[in-house]
């Protein structure tokens, strides 16, 4: 990341501004949808989908994952796997 030219940096900055606007819009959207008082299961799904999309914008563009190296992606993939496992298994342990 240290070897970027000024043109590349300016290009990145343009993207940052666009991502910011998208995040702001999605925040308004997620709050707005909550007022619809959808059935719980659907409300959860919609909220999580929007949140996941916002999070991936932050991760991809602000955290530079779009250009990041394999080693970082490998550590993240491993972590995400265990994260999902930890998230789900205790709650479904009554089955």
């Amino acid at each position, binding site marked *: 990341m240290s070897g970027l030219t000024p043109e590349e940096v300016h290009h990145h900055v343009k993207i940052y501004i666009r991502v910011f606007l998208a995040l702001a819009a999605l925040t308004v959207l997620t709050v707005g949808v909550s007022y619809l008082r959808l059935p719980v299961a659907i409300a959860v799904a919609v909220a999580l989908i929007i949140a996941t999309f916002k999070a991936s914008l932050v991760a991809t563009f602000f955290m530079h994952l779009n250009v990041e190296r394999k080693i970082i992606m490998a550590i993240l993939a491993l*972590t995400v796997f265990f994260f999902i*496992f930890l998230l789900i*298994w205790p709650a479904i342990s*009554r089955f």
Partner: protein
Amino acid sequence: MTDTSKHGHADHDHSHHDLPFWKKYIFSQDHKIIGLQYGWTALLFLLYGFGLMLLMRWQFANPGQPLPLIGNWFPESQMIGGVMLPEFFYQLGAMHGTVMVFLGVVPLAVGAFGNYLVPLQIGAPDMAFPKLNMMSYWLYFVGGVIMFASFWVPDGAAQSGWTSYPPLSILAGQGQTVWLVGMAFLINSSLLGSINFITTIVQLRADGLSFDRLPFFVWSQFVTSFLLLLAFPPLMAASVLQLFDRLFGSSFFMPTGLVVNDQVSAVAGGGNPVLWQHLFWFLAHPEVYVLILPAVGIVGEIIACNTRKPLYNYKALVYSAIFVGFMSFVVWAHHMFLTNMGTTMNTFFQVTTMIISIPSVIILTVLVLSLWGGSIRFNTPMLFAVAFLPMFGLGGLTGLPLGLAATDIHLHDTNYVIGHFHYVVAPGTIFALFAGIYHWFPKMTGRKMNETLGKIHFFFSLILMNCIFAPMLIQGLIGVLRRMYDPMQYAHAQPAQPLNVFISISAGLLAIAQIPFIVNFFWSLFAGQKVEENPWQATTMEWTAPSPPSHGNFVTPPQAHRGPYEYSAPGCKKDFWPQAMKETN
């Protein structure tokens, strides 16, 4: 300790010689000093944890009898007239487990051996983050002091098992809060350490040292670090929740309608004690692989060196270690078969537990096969390393009826469990750690330990450890329950009482059997036989540095020219071909 290396680098290094004593030896950022700090502290805690257990063994063998000689030294809150109170018994039990696992074995296996050897074995000048390394040690030290001090808190130390299950742990006295705070320090120490190990192993390997040429010890530390990195945080989270329950009166783990001393508990309720168990065991299962992986790494190094041949199947060892690490995250609920989980969950965890035994057996088998056809040198490190194999094998086999839910119904919470895990950790891991001490003592001090004392230490420890833990397996099978001040209150357990006496005597003798080791250790520091850089004629890179290595480790950064175990290589004049040596040996 002579500093024989020349300093070829620029002005930075002159500053090292001008450092004040406290910066060079107390708040050191040198991985070797930090490794030794971990080593000393961990060995002291192992002795302390052993002492806690010896007190418990008196109660087991002589229930309700006053402890002779020193019984009256204990305050009335712990022993009345030398007779141990149940509360104190449970404090000893909880703290024995906590101290041995978190303050003894892991800091020795990872903090001491890992810190000292990993940079040397990969040809690096130090760890990637020296300041972070220093902080790791001091966080561990503070956590240890907090745990040690917890006995002096008004209600005594934590007494709800090392597992701290709620609701009991929520209702327990202040010692439990101290335990949680101590754990927070230890967890963060471990976190910083694991970041350091991973970054160091990935980034700072010498030129030519590709991953398929790494010493197996480094691989074992690498996998261990991932376990520590990803498995500890859920316990940190759970500890925060337990602190909330204890200090702020929340009900994360407190169920609705809990009755305590005939009164309904005045909490909001709605909590789930099993939630704690999930989060605790999510860490604590990978934790047991943290206990064993560095040990198999050490045993691998010592076996290769003392058989004068490469390990039987390096790739199988490495892939198995990685697979074990991965699987260790998805077996945790085999500790929870009796918590009324559904049959699907029970089945799932039983299956994953059976699967995880496969790579474990592969590792053990490869190490055993590595002896085949070797020119074996039965020095003290090798004796411990070879004894590790059947002991770990026994420990692993005794785990099978625990991992199968149907048989676990009978064995859960009995002394069988205690026998199982002590087999793996005591004549298992601790033997590997002893092997490591005898093996690497010359590198760290420039002197060898005495062989005769070493062999005495070995033979008595091996026999006595079996005398202690094998009877526990039998006790468990007939139904003696663990964590009981008075297990003989149940008629069915009473026939096992003579075994309790036998175990306790063996434990006392085991304590005495450590004296040759302690004497040997201190005597050898000052008067042991002086040795050169590579007294064992080993191939890995740490043996090319001076004994002990100076700051920066290597005069010129080494390069790896071959694999780590080129012993008895065809065409070589000598029976070992060091990894960092350019030309033929």
